[in-house]
């Protein structure tokens, strides 16, 4: 499996990569079929989501299909009536935001390692805990 293109997230006023896919959980829980097609091996999910952490909550702020010129799906097609921001209350899990230089490349999913990971535990869309994990190449 090829390394996957990350989502992006606005966190503490800075645009960063997000190595988690909270929208996938929405499709899973709602049993709605994703309208996106995986046309590129580097983006099997077929979309790029832009997220934000504000008010201690996780929000989806934009969404677009990638590597699929004909797919004009926008956020409001999935969340009718919400075209600017969607509260990701369906998501419980850990968000991984890489920080620093890449120290090890892995040709698989979000497997590459960075100097640090900012790990944000989110429960039903609300931030519960944030901690920074220092990484080293030997995996410790």
């Amino acid at each position, binding site marked *: 499996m090829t390394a996957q293109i990350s989502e992006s997230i606005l966190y503490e006023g800075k645009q960063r990569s997000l190595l988690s896919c909270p929208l996938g*959980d*929405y499709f*899973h*829980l*709602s*049993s709605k079929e994703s309208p996106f097609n995986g046309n590129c091996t580097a983006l099997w999910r077929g979309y790029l989501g832009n997220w934000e952490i*504000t*008010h201690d*909550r996780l*929000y989806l702020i934009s969404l677009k299909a990638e590597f699929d010129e004909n797919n004009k799906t926008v956020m409001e097609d999935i*969340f009718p*009536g*919400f075209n*600017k*921001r*969607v*509260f990701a*209350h*369906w998501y*419980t*899990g*850990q968000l991984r935001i890489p920080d620093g230089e890449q120290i090890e490349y892995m040709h698989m999913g979000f497997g590459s390692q960075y100097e640090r990971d900012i*790990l944000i*535990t989110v429960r*039903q869309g609300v931030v519960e*805990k944030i901690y920074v994990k220092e990484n080293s190449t030997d995996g410790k």
Partner: protein
Amino acid sequence: MIYFFIYLVIGFTYTFGVMVHHKLSREESDEIPKLNENSRFKIIKELLSSCLALTVGTLIWPIMLYFHIDGIINPPYKREEFSVKQSDLLDKFCVGEIENKEVINDPLNSVPPLPFGHLNSEWEEFKGKCLSTKEIWSFKAEYKDYSNTVIKVGYAAINEENVVLTYFICEDYFKDIELS
């Protein structure tokens, strides 16, 4: 020479047995016949592939036997089918109580102020299936999903015999985040 002959007889018998078993089990699972394939070509193709398999199997049957036994001793991992068990049930609720409890509020108004917010249509669908059920219970279930344990939280409808008829999941996450 006699040993080689015995080796081939065992191999032939074993391979033939495996092929017959495979053919019978395949016929049971093939519910829809292939209509577009030319039947004469199909028969020739099957005959040739069977002869080839029988020849190869007769020669290398110990390897096949090894994998066969290995498959019995170490069966391939089969993903467990998720179900809500009685032991997963937590508390009994009526629809009104759940709907009051599960309205999602957001300071930035980016969720419909309805039970389960963006998952409201799935909740409504579940409610529609609950009309003839006895009770609705909340549940929290553990589920083995390949290498991870997943927690699923939601509501289940049970009938007069306390059997879970249908369920609605509103949370689904890896168990290890509870420990982090």
